């Protein structure tokens, strides 16, 4: 991509960008100032809706539509929760936004909160990112000292407080209702929906929940407009994504590219292709929950619709590349172990089903595979899909089903050869 199309990560190379002076020297907080001083909340909402900014956390729901669900004119306070849990295996992009440019996130939070009428925002950040949490707190201090946060922001009558809240090691807390429970000081047990958080969320009040990268897009939409946004990427799926590439590539890392960039291009042109002597076998295109694609399925544009049509998903934009020497049984083992470990235990199909699949896979890996094992795994996974309280059940079932279906012959061979040893 021409570098001019990058905007989220464009300044990342600057020294000390995380300090407010450097951010200000580069146009920082201009968008928030413009929003608060010259725009009505409804104008901003219309702009974000027109941009059709789709959520960057996983499901791709349009942010403007979500904000529009929040009831206005109610007595109760409203809250913003920024989802910085970043637990989806393969995902590490939000870390770069928060550590390189924490003020960009704060600026997005200010505009979002002003638009929806929110006076208290929480950044729910995974517990392991303690250093980044400290950096965010420092940034909040700097912004408060300048009058960009706190009382009467930019001399207006708008108040906003931002609190960094650390999680404590539980993947499920990335799920939005589990996140709310966790923020309230409880175990991360997802809630039944509806009601949706937009009407009944944190402390029973209307709540907006958005991913870090989603919120980081807001200042740019504010400054440059919806039309500019829809011209990058695809008309209905505009802007860039920060793709995180890991696994068997020469240059793992983040790559900011317009939506609709081909998966092949990302792997070969940007991430440097596979290391010498390695051949491509499979790709997980959107975090571990995304069903695997085979090597011959990578000529596909990276956008929500295209991946859905291909039976997978864009999810968190985390691309995991698997080479020909990797055993898919090993991949299946890691995937099933992860979800068995992370199930919160509220629903029987998820709690029992995933643990059972994991046991079967462990037994196969130990050389005890039996005829019919793959069928049993398929049957169990199908019994989880669509039958659980939160999407973790599906997130576990879908990748497992895809691996078994697409790599059946390899898995059968392995069951046989492991037994012979």
């Amino acid at each position, binding site marked *: 991509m021409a570098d001019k199309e990058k905007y989220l990560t464009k300044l990342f190379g600057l020294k000390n960008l995380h300090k407010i002076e450097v951010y200000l020297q580069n146009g920082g907080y201009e968008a928030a100032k413009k929003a608060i001083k010259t725009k009505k909340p409804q104008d901003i909402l219309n702009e974000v809706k027109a941009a059709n900014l789709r959520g960057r956390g996983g499901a791709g729901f349009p942010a403007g539509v979500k904000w529009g669900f929040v009831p206005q004119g109610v007595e109760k*306070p409203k809250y913003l929760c920024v989802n910085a849990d*970043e*637990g*989806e*295996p*393969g*995902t*590490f992009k939000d*870390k770069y936004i928060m550590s390189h440019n924490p003020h960009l996130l704060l600026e997005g939070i200010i505009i979002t909160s002003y638009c929806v009428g929110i006076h*208290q925002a929480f950044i729910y950040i*995974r*517990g*392991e*990112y*303690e*250093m980044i949490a400290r950096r965010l707190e420092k940034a909040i201090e700097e912004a408060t000292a300048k009058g960009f946060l706190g009382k009467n922001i930019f001399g207006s009558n708008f108040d906003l*407080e931002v*609190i960094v*809240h*650390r*999680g*404590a*090691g*539980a*993947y499920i807390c990335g799920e939005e209702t589990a996140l709310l429970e*966790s*923020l*309230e*000081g*409880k*175990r*991360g047990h997802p809630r039944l929906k509806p009601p949706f958080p937009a009407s009944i969320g944190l*402390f029973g009040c209307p709540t907006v929940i958005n991913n870090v990268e989603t919120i980081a897009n807001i200042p740019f939409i504010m400054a440059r407009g919806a039309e500019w946004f829809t011209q990058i990427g695809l008309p209905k799926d505009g802007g860039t994504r920060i793709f*995180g*590439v*890991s*696994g*068997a590539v020469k240059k*793992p*890392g*983040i790559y900011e590219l317009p939506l609709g960039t081909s998966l092949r291009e990302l792997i070969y042109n940007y991430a440097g292709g596979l290391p010498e002597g390695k051949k491509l076998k499979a790709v*997980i295109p959107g975090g*571990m929950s995304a069903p695997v694609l085979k090597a011959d399925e990578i000529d596909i544009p990276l956008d929500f619709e295209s991946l859905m049509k291909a039976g997978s998903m864009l999810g968190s934009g*985390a691309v*995991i590349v*698997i*080479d020909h020497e*990797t055993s898919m049984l*090993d*991949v299946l083992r*890691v*995937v099933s172990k*992860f979800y068995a*470990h*992370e199930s919160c235990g509220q629903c029987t199909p998820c709690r029992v089903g995933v643990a059972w699949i994991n046991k079967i896979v462990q037994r196969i890996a130990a050389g005890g595979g039996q005829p019919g094992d793959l069928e049993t795994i398929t049957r169990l996974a199908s019994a989880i899909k669509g039958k659980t309280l939160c999407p973790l059940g599906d997130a576990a079932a879908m990748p497992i089903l895809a691996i078994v279906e697409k790599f059946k012959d390899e898995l059968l061979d392995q069951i046989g050869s492991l037994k012979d040893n």
Partner: protein
Amino acid sequence: MMDLSPETRKKITQLTAKYPQKQAALLPVLHLIQNEMGYIPQEAEIWVAELLGLQPVRVKEVITFYTMFLEKPIGRYHLQVCTNLSCTLAGAEHILNYLIKKLGIKPGETTADGRFTLTTVECLGACEQAPCMMINFDYYGNLTPEKIDEILDGLE
């Protein structure tokens, strides 16, 4: 009475005031206690429950739900090796086995001198530096046996 430093107590008071409901401060308060004491002792559970107006069982429930909260003291350096997919693809098993041999302990155990505790963890959000691990709150990536030797030698 709980043996907490005045600084931590002050931070706890400030924290609980920030939230619309004080119970919401449970996770941050537990983090502060663990940062100071290294784990969350039984007496702290009771103390926190009283402070936040919670049943002690609610506190216990939370401590056992979240993997980062520790109910028992561990070694001075907590080595957490990621064994999720990107790290596995980059040889996490090899790294883990090297540490098991070098330290003479299995995952979940602490060395006899109390210096090191070894655990395996799920994705740490540093897959671009696979294979990786955390030691306390610091990340170490692109691990090799040589690099591990160097890192461990560099610790006090």
